[in-house]
């Protein structure tokens, strides 16, 4: 990302692009990642609700997955998943 000069700054440094933080990918922080076992998933959506990143999404098939661009690997989804459908595995 190129940095703006002082002349290019918006007046009052107002940020007028809502949600532009998504340009930054926090997925690089991750040391472990969640893996869904859809045979155990009951589609309750608890993983979606409890994700601090808001990066767990429901697919058209009703199953859930995390956007790895943002998933920080906190493990809350796995820890909270009642039917134990989400497993955390080490990255790399």
């Amino acid at each position, binding site marked *: 990302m190129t940095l703006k000069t002082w002349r290019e*700054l918006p007046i009052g*440094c107002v940020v007028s692009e809502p949600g532009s933080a998504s340009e930054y990918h926090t997925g690089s922080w991750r040391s472990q990642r969640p893996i869904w076992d859809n045979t155990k998933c009951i589609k309750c959506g608890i993983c979606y609700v409890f994700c601090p990143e808001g990066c767990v999404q429901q697919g058209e098939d009703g199953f859930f997955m995390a956007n790895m661009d943002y998933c920080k690997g906190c493990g809350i989804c796995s820890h909270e998943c009642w039917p134990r459908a989400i497993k955390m595995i080490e990255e790399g």
Partner: protein
Amino acid sequence: MGKRVGMEVAVAVAEAVGLCNIDMAAVYPITPQSHIAEHLSDLVADGKIDAEFVTVESEHSAMSAVIGASGTGARSYTATSSQGLMYMHELLPIASAMRLPITMAIANRAVSGPLNILNDHSDIMPQRDSGWISIFVENGQEAIDMSIIAFKIAEHKDVMLPVNINIDGFQLTHMVEPFEMPTQEEVNQFLPPFIPHATLHPARPVTMGAFAMSDYFTEIMKAKDEAIKNSKKVILKVWDEWGRLFGRNYKPVETYKTDDADILLLTMGSMGETAQMAIDELRVKGTKAGLVKLRLWRPFPFDELKAVVKNTKKLIVTDRAVSFGGPGGPVFSEIKSALYAETQRPLIYNYIYGLGGRDVTVKDFTGMFEKVLADTGNQAADTYEFWGVRE
């Protein structure tokens, strides 16, 4: 052309602000500002102005609330004094960095301690570097005029900065003076509606006051510095326009009998009128004395000041605040540094006076002149003196 009225200056300031179609005001009581707050709330209570009047629990919250309101695009006003201004201090550079055109009256009063409710400039001087346009007025008429003008300057699309109007506490705020109050029609004609650069409204969600680290902080400071420097053009233009409409002309540096003067006195605020009498007395005695009144404190009017003092031999700068352990009063050190690069510059003398409401008479000014005239000039006045202090 306005109405000829006589009233207390603080009340008149509130009346003038009442003509400006403000949307919101948040004011906390403090002597000697309180009459502005009281009269503004009267105007709101009587339905004479259609605004939200927020009776905050502190000056810190007064400034916070006007920042919030200004962020929504509301024309927002506050007024304070002394400790209240010190309490707001944290927020002043934030308001200017966010480029919110808030206007504020300051009934200048000494800063504690010890507690002293009377007039000097020790409250505004610590706010010097907050990025606000800072204007001093000399009398009630100027206080009224600047209170209206401030909105137009602040909200100009090429400015978008907060403005403070400095009105000497008690010595000016509590005087009953005759003046011309512009009519509502005249103000409507002069003051366009406020068009904000961004607003806190869901129609177009923005983030204001974002967090910036070292990669952006320097650029943000530079942009703010350029903004306030550029504001001078607009200030001059708006003052010109006011002059055309109302016949009262304002300049960043006002002068009185300076053209042929060998020795000049520089004042800020309400002392100007007393100083003017001193000049007249000295002129009668044959001293080529003149007076410089600094109206615009920020952005500092370098060019105008240099032009005025260029041909004088001696310049007496008066200060109504102390920079403890520093190079002299804040106005003095500013003017000295402004003139440093000039090949032709006067000797500069600094007197700190009128602190905490200490009375200043014509005699005090003539006394300063006598002392400076007696100086052979070689001492070059590298220091400052507390005028009238009991040794």
